C-alpha cells in the first residue's frame, strides 16, 4: 500500500483500539473488577485523539482530562498496564494509586491525566517553556473537554503560551456536555476558536468525520507550534454514553442520542475504506479480531494482576531518597507504649 493508502487504515486501527479498550473497561466494571465507578469512557470521541496522536512526534508530550484513555492509546500506551491501573492493581501504570482519572506514563511523554477540570492545562505551558529552553523540539499538547473552556486557568495559559511563543497546542474535545449540562447552558460564546484567536493562537475547528482531512489540518497546527506558533484545536464530537459508569443520561432525549450516535467516526472510516477500495470487509474484520484479542488479554491481565502491598500507601509521597511519612499507627503506638 502507498502512504496515502496506509494512512486511513492506521487511523481506523487506532480508533478501533480505543473503542474496544473502552468497551472492555465497561466489561471490567460489570465484572466488579474496577477500582470504583469513576470511569469516563470516550466512546464516540475517538477521532480527535487519534488524528492528533498521529500528528504528534515521538518526543512530544501531553496532558489529558479525566476522559483521556483515547490519546494515551493513540500515543502508544500499553492497554495491559492501563487496564491494571483502572482495576487499581499493582501492575498498573501508577501502581493502582491513580486509577482511570490519574493515569500517566512519563516515558511516553504522558505528563498526566487529571481529575480537576482544567487542572492539566498549564502543565503544557511549562513543558513548552522547558522544550524551548532546552532546545528539545518537543511540542506539548493539552487535551481537555468543553467544560474546561469555562475555567479561568485556560485563559491564563493561552495568554502565556502566546506571549512567550511556546511550542504548545490546546486541544478541546467538545462532546457537547459537561456531565449533565449541555454546552448551550455553559458557554456564552460557543465559537471557541474565536476565544483562542483573540489570544493570538492559530486555530482549527474540526466538526466532521473525515479523519484524513482532520489529520492533515491538525498536523499543520502542530507543525506551526513546533516553530513557536502556539495553536488551538476544537474537535466536535458526541459522548455516546453516560458521563461515568453510573450515569444513564436522564437529562437528554433518546432521540438525540440515536441521532448523534449515527455520527460514528469508526463506521465512517470503515465505509470510506470500503468505498475507496482501500480494504475489503475481510481485511477489516481481521483487524477487528486482532484488536479484540489484544483487549481481552489486557482485561485478563488486569484481573490477574496482584493487589498492592499496604506499604504503598506511604511510598511516592516524597522522593524515594527521603524517609517515608510516619504512619498514624506508629505514632499512636509510640504514645501508648
Amino acid at each position: 500500500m502507498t502512504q496515502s493508502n496506509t494512512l486511513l487504515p492506521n487511523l481506523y486501527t487506532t480508533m478501533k483500539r480505543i473503542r474496544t479498550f473502552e468497551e472492555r473497561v465497561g466489561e471490567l466494571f460489570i465484572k466488579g473488577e474496577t477500582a470504583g465507578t469513576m470511569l469516563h469512557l470516550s466512546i464516540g470521541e475517538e477521532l480527535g485523539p487519534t488524528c492528533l496522536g498521529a500528528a504528534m512526534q515521538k518526543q512530544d508530550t501531553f496532558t489529558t482530562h479525566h476522559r483521556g484513555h483515547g490519546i494515551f492509546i493513540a500515543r502508544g500506551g500499553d492497554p495491559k498496564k492501563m487496564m491494571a491501573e483502572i482495576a487499581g492493581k499493582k501492575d498498573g501504570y501508577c501502581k493502582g494509586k491513580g486509577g482511570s482519572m490519574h493515569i500517566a506514563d512519563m516515558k511516553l511523554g504522558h505528563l498526566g491525566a487529571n481529575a480537576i477540570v482544567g487542572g492539566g492545562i498549564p502543565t503544557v505551558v511549562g513543558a513548552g517553556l522547558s522544550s524551548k529552553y532546552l532546545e528539545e523540539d518537543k511540542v506539548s499538547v493539552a487535551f481537555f473537554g468543553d467544560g474546561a473552556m469555562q475555567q479561568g486557568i485556560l485563559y491564563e495559559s493561552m495568554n502565556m503560551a502566546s506571549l512567550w511563543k511556546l511550542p504548545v497546542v490546546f486541544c478541546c474535545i467538545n462532546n457537547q456536555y459537561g456531565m449533565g449540562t449541555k454546552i448551550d447552558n455553559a458557554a456564552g460564546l460557543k465559537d471557541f476558536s474565536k476565544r483562542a484567536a483573540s489570544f493570538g493562537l492559530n486555530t482549527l475547528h474540526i466538526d466532521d468525520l473525515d479523519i484524513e482531512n482532520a489529520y492533515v489540518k491538525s498536523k499543520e497546527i502542530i507543525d506551526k507550534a513546533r516553530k513557536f506558533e502556539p495553536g488551538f484545536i476544537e474537535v466536535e464530537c458526541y459522548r455516546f454514553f453516560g458521563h461515568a459508569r453510573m450515569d444513564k443520561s436522564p437529562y437528554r432525549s433518546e432521540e438525540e442520542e440515536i441521532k448523534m450516535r449515527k455520527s460514528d467516526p469508526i463506521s465512517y472510516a470503515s465505509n470510506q475504506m470500503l468505498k475507496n477500495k482501500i480494504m475489503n470487509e475481510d481485511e477489516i474484520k481481521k483487524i477487528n479480531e486482532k484488536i479484540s484479542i489484544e483487549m481481552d488479554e489486557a482485561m485478563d491481565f488486569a484481573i490477574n494482576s496482584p493487589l498492592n502491598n499496604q506499604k504503598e500507601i506511604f511510598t511516592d509521597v516524597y522522593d524515594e531518597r527521603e524517609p517515608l511519612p510516619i504512619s498514624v499507627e506508629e505514632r499512636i503506638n509510640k504514645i501508648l507504649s
Partner: protein
Amino acid sequence: MSDLNKNYYEKITFRDALRLAIHDSMQKDEKIIVMGEDVAAYGGAYGATKDLLKLFGPKRIIDTPISEAAIVGASMGAALTGLRPIAELMYVDFFGMSMDQIANQLAKVRYMFGGQINAPMILRAQGGTGRSAGAQHSQSLETWIMHTPGLYLSIPYTPNDAYHLLRAALKINNPTIFIEHKLLYNTSGVLDKNNPDQIFGKAKIRKKGKDLSIISYSRMVNFAEKAAEELAKQKIDVEVVDLRTLNPLDRETIIESVNKTKRALVLSESCYTAGVPSEITSIIFEHCYTNLLKPVIRYTAEDTPAPVAPNLEENYIPTIEKIVEYSKKLCK
C-alpha cells in the same frame, strides 16, 4: 420525595433531608437561590438537589459553567446585594480552584469593610473517601476552612442534623461552609422538623459513657458508634461526641466530657498533621490537663494523598478495629 410537607419522617436519607431543608427554606424565603455545577437538570452529582428545578424553575435553581472560582465569587456578590445563595461545589477538593474567593474574599469581606455588609450564603461541598475517587476527589479539607476566620463550618452526620444545620445556616447572616461526606447521602435516620436539637454550635452526645470520650464529626461518628458498641461488650463505656459544627466549636461539651471520662481519642478522616483533631487535642490539653489519665490520641487518615486502589483506600483512613484496639489500650 412525594410527601414534602410532613413534619416527622421515621426514616429518611441524609440526601432527602438536605433536599427537604433546601426546599422548605426556599418556600419560606424567596431570596434563596441554588447555584452550582449540575444542580438543576442533573439534580446534583450526589442527588441533593434532585427535582428542585421542577419545583422552583431555572430562575432559582441555576446550573453554572464549570467555573468554581466564579461560582463562589458570584454567590458572594449576590449575597452582598440582596440574595441568599446556596452555592454548591461538587467536591471539597475544588476548594483548590475557589480558595481565593473563599478565603480572601468571602471570609474577609465583612471585616475588611468595617462591618458594613454581610455575605449571607451557604457553600455546600462534598468530601471524604470511600469511592476509590482518588487523590483529587477524596480529601477532607475542613481544616482549611476552620483555619480561616470569618467562615462558619457545619459538618453533619445524621439526616436530622443535615436538615436543621442547613436551615439554621440560612437564618444566620454569616457565610457558612457546609461539608457533606459522600458516603452519608444514602444513610438514613429520623427527621423531626420540629426538633432542631439545639443545633447551631452545640455538639451532640451520641452515646453517654464514663471511661473514654471519642470525639468526632461527620462519617467518623458512625465508626465511633460502632467501636463503642464493640467496646461495651468488653466492659469499656465510651462517650461518643459528635461536634456537628467546627465553627462555632462547642468547647464546653468537649471539656466537660473529657473531664468526666479522663481519656480522649479524637477521630477524623482528615490527615494527621495540623488537622482539626490537632486543635481539639490542644483544647483538651489546655483545659483537662490535671484530669487526664492518658495522653490524648488523634486517630486520623495518613499524612499522604488518598490512593485509588480499594484495598489501600480502606486502610488509609481509620478502621473500626483499630479504634477498638487503641481505646482498649487507653483504658488499660
